[in-house]
């Protein structure tokens, strides 16, 4: 290693200080000569003779000098310098060519770097936790649910009995309202078990994390703040520990402050958060009856012991699960689904990102092929220059190097420009990605990205430079010199090579076009499927009632009724409602079991559906249509006969050939009294569960005054005749008028929510479409180049044809035929490749196959039309061939 450094240092010195080294060499040898002369003089030889003798003995000063230089091997560097200077001059001579090539490369290299920086941030960077590879997420799984949350009492058993985790914790999203410090604000918060931060491997910067005592009911009035919240709301007060703050109208004692930049590991249920987005954490209290195990709504996360794999840990958990199932019937039919944290976070976008990288890689490949093609054309034009240089003694390798210097120079210019484009592009890209996209905050253009850019730049330069360089250095000297005078013709081999390159370009472009085509169809399908609600002109906001001040269902129902009655009288408001859930805003797997009067559950299955609560006008406000029966009314109150609304999916599942209206349902196992039954009063349309999927789960709604539990966390929905943004102020005022301690949170337009749910497919479609357009233009340039060159070679032939009676149309057909033939080969190859690669895309598409025949036909048509357009100018030129000149030349 040391020696190499030394060698490098010496070489560098020899090169950087060539002058000095030369003088030193000169002085050194002169010293030797002088000593020899002196010796000769001392031996009694005359002065003149002594010098000559010394020179003779020395044996050729310049040879020795050359040999010494050779030993220092600076020759390469000097040649490289020469090559580069020459390359700059040559590129400057054909500025249009240079600009086209450099811009093409800049676009494709920039696009590659931009996509790579997303991949680097999301996929390559390690998760921001120590030894993150040992973190795993824990879910339940059953026949019906691939992934299901954990329940509290099972968790306690798992935590006590498992032998695979160093530490194991649960957390669940529970936003909470901070009041008493300025305006009330909704905090993005999580309830966590003790040891949650131990699992993640991050410790509070001040104070401590929760202990087991604080998990017990009644002890949980403690809170840990994020660094951000501590600075923003509490002015980074150093005496914050021990201070009491008001959360959901209850006092909480601050016991810790986290360091800045604690990334949330993501959550599968409720609004997904990533990055440094959590404001506060407070203890999860294990309440209720251990025999009932509690509802499933917790997210498990654990740190594996060193050497334990996820599979082993899952097996360990499943043994415990099997044992639990023998004690608790509710635990029957469940197994554990354990997944590494990394996979859980990036899994949903892994394939998308790789597809994008593949697409952008194809663009770069096409750009390379295109540039190689242009260089080949230019090499043909430069044949004479090359032949002259070869005749003057330039070796083949020297010629190749010269040409490579030119292509590398262009690549480096393109790469540099591309790096600039990438830095700007990445910022735009991140702005377009939805907030729920994993690890958005980790996406940056960094050293690795620049390294990647440099690498692809060099690879590109070599790749597109080498073929033309090798090809043209094979120039036949004599022919080159002889033909030089009247403009060289390409050899058959070169023409074939260029045609092959064009075929390659076309086929790659077809692959991209087909990808973009099916993605477009899939996206249109998504847009056109009925969402099940009408998102236009709807304002939504979350208003949560703390259970300390709103203790009863009556109080909750009264609050929302007063609020909504007031809001519905505002000018322009068509409907004002409130409900526990909004479509597409997060997790909605809250399943409730029930019994249907007069129906028997099939063996091994239980009646279940998603439960919600809503006010009478909720459905009208959100735009969910009534199919049968009626909506809720103001008469569905406490004491009145209990009412229930179901969706069509639930109607289809449990009353396949009947009208569900009038049937009765009960939610508790004990013998129901007549007043316990809920009667189905209406059926409403289905709302798609996820924007990317047309499926809708069975679901039902309770009227808020008749809900079995005291849900006090509602989304208010206002439908307006026109732009609803102006209602925001009224809404805030109305809430403040009723209770000034309440926060109005998550104020959004429903069409925004809907648009955001499509933003990932939209941005991927946009990118692939952009890449495909780029690819098609490059292919068009390639076709144009080859055909126009071939036409200029064949002008004489066309002249002859015209002289012999061919019409303009015949000539055009001839030229077009050549272009279309090349393109057709490319299209065939490209579509073949598409069919072979279809499997990669299929899972990302909605309602269309990656082998969609209509798309493939359109792609072929587009490619052929482009080819025809690209060669049309050449074809026109061919018709202008002069028959007289052609005949005269014969």
């Amino acid at each position, binding site marked *: 290693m*040391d*020696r190499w450094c*030394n*060698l490098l240092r*010496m*070489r560098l010195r020899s090169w950087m200080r060539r002058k000095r080294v030369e003088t*030193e*060499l000169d*002085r*050194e*040898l002169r*010293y*030797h000569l*002088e*000593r*020899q002369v*002196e010796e000769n003089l001392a031996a009694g030889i005359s002065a003149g003779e002594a010098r000559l003798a010394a020179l003779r*003995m*020395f*044996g*050729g000063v310049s*040879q*020795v000098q050359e*040999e*010494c230089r*050779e*030993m*220092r*091997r600076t020759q390469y560097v000097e040649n490289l310098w020469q090559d580069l200077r020459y390359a700059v001059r040559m590129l400057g001579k054909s500025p249009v060519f240079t600009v086209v090539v450099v811009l093409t490369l800049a676009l494709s290299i920039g696009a590659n770097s931009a996509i790579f920086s997303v991949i680097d941030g999301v996929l390559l960077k390690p998760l921001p936790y120590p030894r993150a590879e040992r973190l795993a997420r824990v879910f339940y799984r059953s026949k019906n649910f691939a992934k299901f949350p954990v329940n509290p009492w099972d968790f306690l058993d798992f935590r006590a009995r498992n032998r695979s985790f160093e530490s194991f914790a649960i957390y669940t999203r529970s936003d909470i309202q901070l009041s008493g410090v300025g305006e009330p604000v909704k905090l993005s918060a999580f309830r966590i078990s003790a040891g949650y931060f131990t699992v993640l491997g991050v410790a509070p910067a001040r104070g401590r994390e929760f202990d087991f005592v604080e998990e017990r009911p009644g002890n949980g009035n403690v809170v840990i703040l994020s660094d951000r919240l501590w600075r923003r709301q509490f002015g980074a007060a150093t005496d914050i520990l021990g201070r009491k703050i008001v959360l959901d109208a209850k006092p909480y004692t601050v016991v810790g402050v986290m360091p800045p930049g604690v990334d949330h590991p993501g959550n599968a249920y409720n609004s997904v958060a990533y990055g440094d987005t959590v404001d506060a954490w407070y203890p999860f209290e294990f309440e209720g009856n251990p025999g009932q195990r509690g509802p499933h709504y917790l997210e498990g996360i654990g740190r594996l012991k060193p050497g334990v794999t996820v599979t082993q840990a899952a097996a360990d958990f499943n043994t415990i699960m099997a044992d639990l199932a023998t004690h608790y019937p509710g635990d029957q039919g469940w197994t554990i689904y354990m997944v590494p944290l990394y996979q859980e976070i990036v899994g949903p976008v892994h394939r998308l990102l790789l597809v994008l990288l593949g697409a952008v890689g194809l663009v770069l490949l096409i750009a390379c092929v295109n540039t190689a093609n242009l260089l080949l054309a230019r090499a043909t034009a430069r044949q004479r220059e090359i032949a002259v240089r070869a005749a003057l003694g330039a070796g083949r390798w020297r010629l190749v190097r010269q040409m490579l210097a030119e292509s590398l120079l262009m690549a480096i210019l393109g790469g540099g420009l591309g790096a600039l484009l990438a830095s700007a592009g990445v910022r735009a890209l991140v702005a377009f990605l939805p907030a729920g996209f994993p690890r958005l905050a980790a996406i940056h253009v960094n050293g690795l990205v620049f390294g990647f850019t440099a690498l692809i730049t060099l690879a590109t330069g070599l790749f597109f430079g080498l073929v033309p360089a090798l090809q043209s250095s094979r120039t036949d000297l004599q022919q080159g010199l002889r033909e030089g005078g009247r403009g060289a013709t390409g050899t058959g081999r070169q023409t074939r090579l260029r045609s092959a390159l064009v075929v390659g370009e076309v086929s790659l472009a077809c692959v991209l076009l087909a990808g973009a085509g099916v993605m477009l169809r899939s996206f249109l399908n998504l847009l056109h499927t009925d969402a099940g609600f009408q998102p236009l002109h709807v304002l939504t906001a979350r208003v949560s009632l703390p259970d300390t001040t709103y203790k009863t269902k009556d109080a909750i129902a009264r609050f929302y009724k007063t609020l909504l009655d007031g809001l519905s009288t505002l000018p322009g408001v068509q409907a004002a409602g409130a409900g526990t859930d909004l479509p597409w805003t997060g997790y909605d797997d809250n399943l409730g079991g029930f019994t249907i009067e007069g129906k028997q559950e099939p063996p091994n299955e239980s009646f279940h559906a998603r439960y919600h609560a809503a006010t009478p006008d909720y459905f009208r406000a959100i735009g969910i249509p009534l199919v049968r029966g009626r909506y809720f009314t103001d008469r569905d109150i406490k004491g009145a006969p209990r009412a229930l609304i179901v969706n069509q999916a639930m109607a289809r599942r449990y009353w396949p050939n009947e009208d569900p209206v009038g049937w009765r349902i009960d939610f508790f196992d004990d013998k129901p009294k007549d007043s316990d039954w809920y009667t189905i009063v209406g059926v409403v349309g289905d709302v798609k569960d996820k924007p990317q999927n047309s499926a809708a789960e069975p679901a039902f709604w309770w009227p808020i005054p008749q809900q079995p539990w005291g849900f006090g966390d509602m989304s208010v929905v206002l439908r307006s005749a026109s732009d609803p943004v102006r209602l925001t102020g009224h809404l805030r005022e109305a809430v403040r008028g009723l209770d000034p301690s309440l926060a109005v949170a998550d104020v959004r337009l429903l069409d925004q929510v809907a648009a955001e749910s499509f933003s990932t497919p939209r941005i991927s479609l946009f990118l692939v479409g952009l890449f495909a357009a780029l690819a098609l233009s490059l292919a068009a340039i390639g076709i144009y180049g080859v055909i126009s060159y071939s036409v200029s070679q064949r002008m004489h032939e066309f002249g002859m044809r015209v002289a012999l009676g061919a019409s303009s149309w015949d000539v055009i057909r001839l030229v077009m035929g050549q272009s279309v033939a090349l393109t057709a080969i490319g299209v065939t190859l490209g579509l073949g490749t598409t069919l072979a690669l279809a499997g990669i895309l299929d899972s990302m598409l909605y309602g269309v196959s990656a082998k969609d025949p209509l798309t493939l036909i359109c792609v072929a048509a587009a490619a052929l039309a482009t080819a025809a357009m690209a060669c049309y100018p050449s074809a026109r030129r061919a018709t202008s061939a002069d028959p007289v000149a052609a005949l005269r030349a014969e």
Partner: protein
Amino acid sequence: MSKPSDLIQGTLDLLILKTLALEPMHGWAIAKRIQQVSQEVLQVTQGALYPALHRLEQQGWLRAEWRASETGREAKFYRLTKAGRVQLDKELEQWRRLSHAVVQVVGEA
């Protein structure tokens, strides 16, 4: 006169390294010293000596500096580096093995 090509390949390096092991010298002195010590049997020509010196310097086995010579004029003095000393040992060892082998074959004890 013994030309460098008569020297066994690589021997010149050994001679230079060995000579410089005593003290730093300039090219002329190195040539003279080899000549003297070998009792005029080995004559190193400049054509071989200087490229060899430059090569050894590039390898990092020699380090050169300009200073006043015994005649009072500035000359380029070469000095053995640490790496050069290691190299000298290696080459000596090789030379011993080689000469021993040659003696074995030629059969002169």
